């Protein structure tokens, strides 16, 4: 049987692709493969990570141009097939711009680019990306973004709450996000987008290991 392979999408301007690869390969012994954004053949990968960065220089809006790449076009069938997609930071922005997840990410309330560690409450275990029993004390993950303020209208927020789609919330909201939202899943649970960087919290020596669970969960299902 072929080894489970996680595809890491590389856009012009992605800059966390190698961090994700290191976290999966070196920390978790999970095979990875870089996928250039112009490729549309996703047949030989079992899960996909959209990493952080500044795809297309954040031109127009964060994630707005990346949405039109052939790879994102193919992602619709990939998601329909039930395979797992994790969008981190710019990856989360791309998932909202492409309509895989509701809402949008806009400029931080205080206009600062925030680079910090944040405390997060794990709200939902939907999709198995996190575990609100094992992680009920909360988790600490780094954030690094200028446009991470999650915004949605009140109807969408109600839907997120009613359907248990809010995965993590900030304890001390750093950016003005609606309802302190830091990460959400789709209704099926196989797409997860979050602003914090789990790949930067996979080693005790450099930032803790609270990100391991989420990355491991790419292959758990």
């Amino acid at each position, binding site marked *: 049987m072929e080894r489970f392979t996680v595809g890491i999408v590389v856009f012009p301007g992605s800059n966390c692709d190698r961090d994700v690869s290191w976290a999966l390969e070196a920390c978790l012994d999970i095979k990875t493969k870089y996928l250039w954004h112009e490729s549309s053949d996703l047949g030989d990968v079992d899960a996909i990570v959209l990493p952080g960065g500044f795809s297309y220089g954040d031109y127009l809006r964060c994630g707005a141009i990346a949405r039109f790449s052939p790879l994102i076009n193919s992602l619709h069938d990939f998601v329909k097939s039930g395979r797992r997609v994790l969008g981190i930071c710019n990856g989360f922005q791309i998932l*909202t711009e492409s309509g895989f997840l509701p809402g949008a990410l*806009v400029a931080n309330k205080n206009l600062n680019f925030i680079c910090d560690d944040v405390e997060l409450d794990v709200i939902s275990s939907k999709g198995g990306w996190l575990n609100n029993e094992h992680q009920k004390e909360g988790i600490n993950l780094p954030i690094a973004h200028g446009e991470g*303020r999650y915004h*949605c*209208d009140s109807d969408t927020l109600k839907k997120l709450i009613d359907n248990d789609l809010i995965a993590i919330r900030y304890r001390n909201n750093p950016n003005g996000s609606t309802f302190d939202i830091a990460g959400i899943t789709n209704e099926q649970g196989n797409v997860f987008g979050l602003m914090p960087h789990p790949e930067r919290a996979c080693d005790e020596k450099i930032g803790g290991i609270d990100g391991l669970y989420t990355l491991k969960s790419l292959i758990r299902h």
Partner: protein
Amino acid sequence: MDQFSVKVFIRLRPSVLDPAGEATKSASNKLGVEGIKSLRIGKMIEVKIESETENDVRKKVDLLCDRLFANTVIEDYEYSIETI
């Protein structure tokens, strides 16, 4: 085929906080300009487009605005068309 000039204005929806607008409003006050009640920053996109009719242009620009220029979750748009 006629040539048309289209000016598209994109604004954050009124319900979306505009921190850049707030910061600029604060700087405007520091400049000594009084009476500013609201200041919000948007984008303007100029497009020159060739098409048979103005109606065709509208169809194209509506598609561009809905799918690319604006994210209607957070932004509204309007545009004007002139024949060149």
